C-alpha cells in the first residue's frame, strides 16, 4: 500500500498506509489524521482539504483550473505547492508522498 506522510504545524507527523484509488483527503479523514477537514466530501466546493505538497515537487503543478480557483477560498495562505488533497488520488507511483497541513482549514 502506498504511504502518505502528513506533517503538522505543531511539529508532529502521521505516516499512513493509503488505499489505492483513495484520495489523500479521504485517507486522512478515515484514519483520524488531524488538520484536514474535507467538509464537502471531496466535491471541490469547500477548500477545507488544503495541503502543501513537499514531495514529489511536480505534483503541485497538476492542479486543474477548478481546483486552482477553489484554492482561493483556502483559509491559510496559498503557496506554489498548494493542493486540495481531495483531488490527489493515491496509487503506487505516489508512494512516499509528503504533505504539510496548514495552520487553519476554515
Amino acid at each position, binding site marked *: 500500500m502506498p504511504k502518505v506522510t502528513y506533517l503538522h504545524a505543531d511539529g508532529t507527523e502521521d505516516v499512513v498506509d493509503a488505499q489505492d484509488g483513495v484520495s489523500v483527503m*479521504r485517507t486522512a*479523514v*478515515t*484514519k*483520524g489524521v*488531524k488538520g484536514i477537514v474535507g*467538509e*464537502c*466530501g471531496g*466535491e*471541490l*466546493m*469547500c477548500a477545507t482539504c488544503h495541503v502543501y505538497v513537499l514531495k514529489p515537487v511536480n505534483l503541485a503543478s497538476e492542479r486543474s*483550473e*477548478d481546483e486552482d*480557483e*477553489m484554492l*482561493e*477560498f483556502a483559509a491559510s495562505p496559498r503557496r506554489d505547492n498548494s493542493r486540495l488533497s481531495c483531488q490527489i488520488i493515491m496509487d503506487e507511483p505516489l508512494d512516499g508522498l509528503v504533505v504539510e497541513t496548514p495552520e487553519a482549514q*476554515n
Partner: protein
Amino acid sequence: MARVKFDVVIIGAGKAGSQCAVSLRDEGFAGTIAVFGDEPSIPYDRPPLSKAFLTGVEATEDLVLRAQSVYADQKIDLILDTRVIALDRLNHTLELEGGDEVEFDELVIATGARVRPLPFDGVDLDGVTGLRTIDDAVQLRARLQEADRVVVIGGGFIGLEVAAVAASVFGCTVTLVEALPQLMSRTGLPESAAYVAAHQRALGIDVLLNTPVKGLRGEGGRVAVVVLGDGRELATDVVVYGIGVIPGTDLAESAGLEVANGILVDRTLATSDPHIWAIGDCASYPSVFTAGVVRLESVQNATDQARHVARAIATGKREPYVSVPWFWSDQAEMRIQTAGLTTGFDETVVVGNREDGAFTVLAFLDGRLLGGDSVNASRDHLALRKILGTEPSLWSALLTPLAARAKEFSLREFARNVDSLKASETVL
C-alpha cells in the same frame, strides 16, 4: 436514574453537531463536551446518499465525517443510539430515553430534519421509501438493482438526484412526478430549472410537471401503482419520495422556545434563551442575504453555523452570522451550484451560453444581486461566492442587470476587480 453534567451538550450527531464539537476544541474550549445522537452510526455525510453511495462507488466507511478516534482524542463524549426526549430550560437539564438526566451550561440543538411523509395511504407498502439515512440508502440501492420501473415523487434536489442515478446507473425506467409547474421550485431559478428538466428528459426520465399524486396502490403488500391527480395510473416497482423535510423542532417547541418553520434564533444563532443555540437544518435564522428568516438545508449552512456557535461559546463573543450560503447538486454528468439566496427575485439574467450547457443564472431584486445558480460552471459559481462575500457597497451599484447583460460581462473578471477594490480599501 443517573445524572451527569457537561459544560456543553449538543443534541444531534450529524454534520452540524459533529462540526460544532470539534470546532469548540479548535477554538480552545477546555470544558466538557457531550454529543448525543439517536442514530447508531458515528456522524456521517448525507450528500453521497443520493450520489456516489447510492451508485455503490462509495462504501459506508467513506461516509464517516471523522474517525472515531478523533472524538476520543479531543475528549468529546459521543453518545450514540441515544435519543434526547425532553428539555427542561429552567433547570438546564435534558432527559434521555431510558430516564437518565443530563445537565448543561450551554446547549446546542442540531437535530436536523426527517423526511416529510407522503400525505396519503400506501406509504407503508413495501417498495416505498424516502431518503435521509444510511439505512434508507442501502435499502433503496438494493431496490434499484432489482427494479425495472421507478416513480420518483417530488422534483426537488434529492428526487432529481435519485431519478438520475436510477436511470443512468441502474438502467431503470423512471418517471418523476412534480405537483408544481417547475422543478426545484423552492430554491431554483426558472432558467436553471428548465435546463434541469431538459437534462432529466435527455437521461430518458419522463418528467411530469403540474402533476399531483393522489395515492398509491399495492399488490400483496408491495407497491404496484401510483395514482395521479387526474386519475392516470403509473405501474411501478419502486416509489421514492422527496417532498421536503420536517425540521427537528419538537424538543424546543415543548420547552417553550419559539419555532417558525425551524427553531427560531437571532442573528447570533441563539434562541430566545441565551444559553440555548440552534444550528443546521433545524434552525430558522434572519439572514443578511434575504428578507425575513430562512431555514436552509445544506452542508455549508450546517458547518458554518456550527463553527459560528462554537466560537461564540468558546470566546463569549456574540457576533452576527454572515456566511454566504452555497449548495451543490450532481445529476449524472450535470452539476448545479447555487450561491446566495434568490427567493423573492424579480429579474434574472443568464450569463454564459445555455446551448453550451454551461451558464449562470443571476437573480436580482430591485436591481440588487441576490445570488445565482451555475450549471456546469464551477468557476462562475466561485466568483459569485467571492462577490457575495464582499461588502455590497463595494460592488452592488456596479453589478446591475444591465451590466450583467453586456456581451463582454464576465463574473470571474468582475470578482477579480472586486478583489482588488477590496485590497485597496484595506490599504486606505
